[in-house]
């Protein structure tokens, strides 16, 4: 949990090029912009539900940079807007999900932020917490089984989700078979209203790794470069036969759990404000400026561009229709099965 503040030190860029650093910045800005757009649309009464990821930007953009497009597989959860964008989903795809339009990958069937994209290697998942972790393990097994070297599965979940039995079973199996998988826990200190000390007997999730016989590590998820370095090393180990890793990225949930939640019932404005001081987005802007990788002007231009893209995506998606009612009946099975036939 150090190194976020690079003031006066040379930037340890862990091999990332300036282009890559700028790409990370853009993913972070895009995540925040799309996130805000969802809440805005909800306030405007245009969508019944939105779910923010503020505070997770650095973690997700850094992890996305370590993800190898076209070969790695992502098994994410609903707070992974930045990861989805970072591995190649377009803002338009995100808006389709938020608006539940017919063109959405899920055909408007799932809650927003429940992405799915075979093209991007993003596995479909449900709202049932931890249920996707065994799927990630199974996918990793398939890669290993087919001898597909240099591919790995990146699975993510929140701190609260590690309490589920399926999480344990998955870690155990991945460890036995030394599967090419990275379990990345996004520890934002809350599971809706439940703080860490009601979720677990000791708060360092990475320490469970030793019990499974795999490497574990905690890192500063407010620092996208550190995140990249740690996730990249773990993914690389996975891709090269080194087995699974349990990673715990520390971040914070700046917003309420969702538009249905009021976090002021269980935490104070002050404590949130205190954490906001570490907001990874402005901090990373400063880092890039300080080290001469971007100027303030560059960043402002980037923000403008992100806003433009978000606006375009919003307008384009909003204009599209909901799925037709008849779509309710499709894609249950291959072919037209009825329970009585």
């Amino acid at each position, binding site marked *: 949990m150090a190194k976020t503040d690079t003031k006066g030190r040379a930037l340890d860029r862990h091999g990332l090029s300036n282009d890559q650093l700028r790409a990370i910045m853009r993913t972070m800005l895009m995540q925040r912009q799309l996130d805000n757009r969802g809440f805005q649309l909800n306030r405007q009464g245009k969508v019944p539900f939105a779910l923010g990821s503020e505070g997770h930007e650095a973690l997700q953009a850094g992890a996305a940079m370590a993800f190898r497009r076209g070969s790695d597989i992502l098994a994410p959860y609903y707070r992974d807007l930045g990861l989805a964008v970072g591995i190649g989903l377009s803002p338009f795809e995100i808006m389709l999900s938020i608006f539940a339009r017919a063109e959405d990958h899920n055909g408007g069937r799932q*809650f927003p932020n429940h992405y799915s994209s075979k093209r991007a290697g993003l596995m479909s998942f449900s*709202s049932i917490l931890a249920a996707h972790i065994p799927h990630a393990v199974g996918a990793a097994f398939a890669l290993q089984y087919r001898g597909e070297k240099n591919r790995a599965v990146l699975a993510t979940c929140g701190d609260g989700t590690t*309490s589920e039995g399926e999480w344990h079973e998955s870690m155990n199996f991945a460890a036995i078979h030394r599967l090419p998988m990275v379990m990345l826990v996004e520890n934002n200190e809350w599971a*809706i209203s439940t703080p860490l000390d009601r979720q677990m007997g000791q708060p360092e999730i990475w320490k469970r790794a030793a019990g499974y016989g795999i490497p574990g590590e905690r890192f500063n998820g407010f620092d996208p470069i550190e995140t990249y370095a740690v996730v990249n090393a773990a993914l690389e180990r996975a891709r090269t036969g080194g087995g699974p890793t349990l990673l715990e990225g520390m971040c914070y949930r700046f917003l309420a759990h969702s538009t249905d939640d009021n976090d002021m019932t269980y935490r104070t404005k002050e404590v949130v404000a205190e954490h906001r001081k570490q907001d990874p987005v402005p901090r990373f802007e400063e880092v890039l400026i300080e080290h001469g990788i971007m100027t303030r002007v560059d960043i402002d231009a980037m923000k403008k561009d992100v806003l433009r893209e978000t606006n375009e995506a919003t307008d384009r998606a909003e204009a599209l229709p909901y799925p037709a009612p008849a779509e309710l009946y499709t894609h*249950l099975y291959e072919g037209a099965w009825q329970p009585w036939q």
Partner: protein
Amino acid sequence: MAVSTQSSTVMNNVEAVRATLYEALKSDERVVILGEDVGARGNVFLITKDFIDEFGPNRIIDTPIAEASIVGIAIGMAMEGLRPIAEIQFADFIYPAFNQIVGEAAKTRYRSNGEYTCPLVIRTPYGGGVRGALSHSVSIEALFYHVPGLKILAPAFPADVKGLLNAAIDDPDPVLFLEHKKTYRLIKGEVPSGHYTIPIGKANVVKTGSQLTVVSYGLYVHWALEAAQTLENEGLSVEVIDLRSIRPMDKTTILTSVEKTRKLLIVHEDNKFGGIGAEISAMVAEEALFHLDAPIRRHCAPDVPAMGYAETLEHEYMSSPAKMAEAMRALVRF
């Protein structure tokens, strides 16, 4: 209904659940509530709001996200003398607890030949119409009603919510208590003050009629009443039965009504195939076949997993008073 006091208050279903839980906590130290976000947050529908301040974190227990153990730990508490009320945040998340409910809670008394018992209530909000999408909308009753050892309640009116929740808490065996989340704030009604129970296993004729019996439960009881009123205005007379209790179910009330109206329509939000309407129909086909003047019809959800998030999909999945009225008309006129 054994009402012990005269006064009453108008409440919605959330308030009825909340008031009942509060009184149970007040009157019986063995009662504890456990579930996700039941503490400071006071449950995601604010049902247990402020309880933790009054009763403390030892009685209002914020659990980790781990449904199997929420139920499993509640079973252990119940076996050891407490009266746990476990909450599953949304019915859709009860699946991981299936083993504990079906394999354990339902069998504790039976497998120990009565030596150990499991007085446990599991509350959970179910049902659609709230844009809950695939995983915050499901009906789960048919996945459990086949299981000997369980009782399952699904009241629709605030007074029934209180009377049946009290009955569930007092019950010495495990009860699955289903709360239709769309009715939570929508449905208001008089709720008697003081402690009273409504007997488990008794349906309620919520509207009398002569030409058709409609059996339903949960949100759809309210819509069926609306539809029945529409038919009433057209001169067609429909009797509406609110099941309230899904296991056990009330044979007498259903048969008495069907023998009078000679036609039966079962209405539920859950999928048709293997839904609880199947058992109702089968019971009537077994016991009252020759009283029927028309085939038994079931007006239920299409056979897809649940409603989609998009408005159009939810709308297509759910019935409506108008769709129900149509189904009623068709059968009355059969």
